[in-house]
């Protein structure tokens, strides 16, 4: 038994002899004995020490045993402290009851039988010790519970924070089990694919998203199991039927029974890159065209001028003049093609009068061979020339797109109808030119209709940049005009019409070309009117 476990036994008696005899009796218990000569002294000890049991004489001067017991019971700290009364005088039943009422736990009468006293004190000391141990254990337990609770709360906060962070991610974060069933679906996935979490949890991910893999599925699975991860681009279908390309990173969970997929939408990025590649190709073509232009146009001018001089030279006879005429005519064809392809591509700085019907004819000439090849019949209904102020390159771009699209929509042949007419605007002073381009081709699916004028939207998966109609709309809007379309299907025949309305606006309003840096090969600059 070590010192810590010794119980304090307080002995209170006004007679030192009695105290000494108690000390002798209890000495063999090996507990810590404290002596007090009065109730006051006893209280002092009680306050300073943790007392297991108080052994007190009932009859003492000033404050007797019962009064001391009463005082102790009023103090919360001592309410449960064991008290053994020793009395030689008040040995009556009344006194006993009085003693117990005051909270005493035992009563020993004089003469004190040493064994009895030892036994009682020992029981209380042991009881106290047990109580103390229990209290210590309790408080320790409480402390541990508190610590553990704090730890759990911290973990919970951390988890919640992590879950919130996952929700913040714009990437689609998906966890699926080994059968492909979705276990987790963050809001990034909801935004990317359009499927709500509650709709898709538990469903087979790659079936719902109609995933197309860049490699054999088994090869991907094998790599995933071997290295724990896999990266690649997937093509998937969203809830509303759109195709998206995602950069996918898969990781196998350590226990091997779940797969984490983080998918980033790179559809727009891929399209931008593709458009950029095309632009770069165009720019490179432009540079090459510039060099060729210089080398061809210079001698071409000289030859043209030569034939001009030769045309009615007095020294030539009829036969020579006939040959010169043939040469000049052939040369015109060369000059024409160079003008179309190697002529100025930069726009003039000021708007000029443009005949829309003339512009359409120029475009048709470029498209003629393709249209003949595709067996397309052309119907032109030009009610008038439709002249407006503008920049030829821009307007050519608009109608080249619309006519090109119409021709491409009719690979099996059909009819291309062009209408040009002038209409009077609501404000009496301004007129407008209306141009409609109708084809009997494949038509426009209702799903595609709403995206038609969006950048990078294309139905010609590899052939189109998806910029044509977007640019066209921008140009038309700059002229204060509008571009609308209708696609009708009746009895298995489709008719798709695009109508462009260009108001004849004030010259000053259009000061700059819409896309000044556009490198589209086009006709000569303003003032070249030789083939109208």
């Amino acid at each position: 038994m070590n010192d810590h476990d010794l119980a304090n036994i307080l002995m209170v008696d006004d007679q030192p002899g009695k105290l000494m005899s108690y000390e002798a009796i209890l000495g063999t218990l090996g507990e810590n004995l404290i002596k007090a000569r009065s109730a006051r002294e006893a209280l002092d000890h009680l306050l300073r020490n943790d007392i297991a049991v108080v052994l007190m004489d009932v009859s003492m001067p000033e404050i007797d045993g019962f009064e001391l017991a009463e005082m102790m019971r009023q103090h919360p700290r001592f309410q449960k402290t064991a008290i053994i009364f020793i009395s030689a005088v008040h040995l009556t039943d009344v006194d006993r009851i009085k003693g117990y009422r005051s909270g005493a736990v035992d009563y020993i009468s004089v003469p004190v039988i040493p064994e009895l006293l030892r036994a009682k004190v020992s029981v209380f000391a042991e009881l106290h010790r047990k109580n103390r141990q229990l209290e210590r254990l309790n408080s320790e337990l409480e402390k541990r519970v508190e610590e553990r609770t704090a730890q759990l709360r911290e973990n919970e906060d951390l988890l919640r924070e992590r879950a919130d962070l996952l929700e913040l991610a714009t990437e689609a974060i998906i966890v699926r089990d080994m059968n492909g069933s979705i276990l987790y679906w963050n809001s990034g996935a909801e935004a990317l694919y359009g499927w709500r979490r509650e709709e898709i949890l538990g469903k087979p991910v790659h079936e719902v998203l109609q995933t197309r893999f860049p490699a054999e599925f088994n090869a991907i699975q094998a790599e995933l199991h071997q290295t724990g991860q896999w990266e690649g681009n997937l093509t998937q279908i969203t809830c509303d039927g759109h195709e998206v390309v995602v950069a996918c990173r898969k990781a196998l969970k350590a226990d091997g029974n779940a797969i984490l997929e983080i998918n980033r939408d790179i559809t727009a990025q891929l399209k931008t890159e593709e458009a950029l590649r095309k632009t770069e190709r165009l720019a490179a073509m432009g540079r090459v065209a510039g060099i060729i232009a210089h080398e061809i146009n210079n001698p071409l001018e000289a030859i043209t001028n030569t034939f001009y001089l030769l045309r009615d030279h007095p020294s030539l006879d009829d036969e020579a003049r006939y040959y010169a005429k043939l040469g000049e005519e052939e040369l015109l064809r060369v000059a024409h093609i160079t003008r179309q392809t190697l002529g100025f591509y930069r726009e003039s700085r000021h708007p000029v009068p443009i005949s829309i019907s003339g512009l359409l004819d120029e475009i048709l000439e470029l498209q003629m061979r393709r249209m003949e090849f595709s067996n397309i019949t052309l119907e032109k209904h030009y009610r008038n020339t439709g002249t407006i102020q503008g920049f030829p390159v821009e307007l050519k771009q608009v109608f080249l797109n619309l006519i090109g699209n119409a021709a491409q929509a009719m690979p099996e042949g059909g009819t291309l109808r062009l209408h040009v007419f002038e209409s009077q605007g609501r404000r009496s002073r301004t007129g407008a030119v209306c141009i409609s381009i109708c084809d009997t081709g494949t038509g426009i699916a209702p799903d595609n209709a709403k995206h038609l004028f969006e950048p990078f939207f294309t139905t010609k998966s590899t052939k189109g940049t998806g910029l044509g109609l977007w640019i066209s709309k921008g140009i038309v809007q700059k002229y204060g005009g509008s571009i609308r379309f209708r696609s009708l299907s009746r009895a298995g025949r489709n008719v798709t019409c695009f109508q462009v309305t260009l108001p004849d606006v004030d010259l000053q309003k259009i000061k700059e070309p819409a896309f000044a840096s556009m490198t589209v090969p086009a006709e000569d600059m303003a003032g070249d009117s030789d083939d109208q």
Partner: protein
Amino acid sequence: MTNDCITILVVDDENVPRMLRCLILQKQGYKIVAADSGKRALQLLAEGGIDLVLSDQMMPSMTGTELTRAIKAIRPAMPVILISGVNEIPADANCADRFISKVGGPDLLFETVGEVLAAYGHTL
């Protein structure tokens, strides 16, 4: 034709194209003075008697637009037409009265010369 009172200074570093351009303009009745560089053109211009300058754009020591700015600095009322075989219009092309393509053919050239002269008050 009443063009014979008009003198055009034709500038081009390449001999054959310059000669042919001179000839077709002569055939239209214009009087022609020729120069093989911008520097020579400025000398001839200083001697007087020139009504219009028709210059090539791409020349080695002084480009058409450089020549135009030099002319306009000393003779703001001297009409200048630039002619180019390249398919790119230089950014400062509008310092000249007109900038035309060589592949426009003789008719475009005559028309442009006529329009510019008219704009400067030369009645034909």
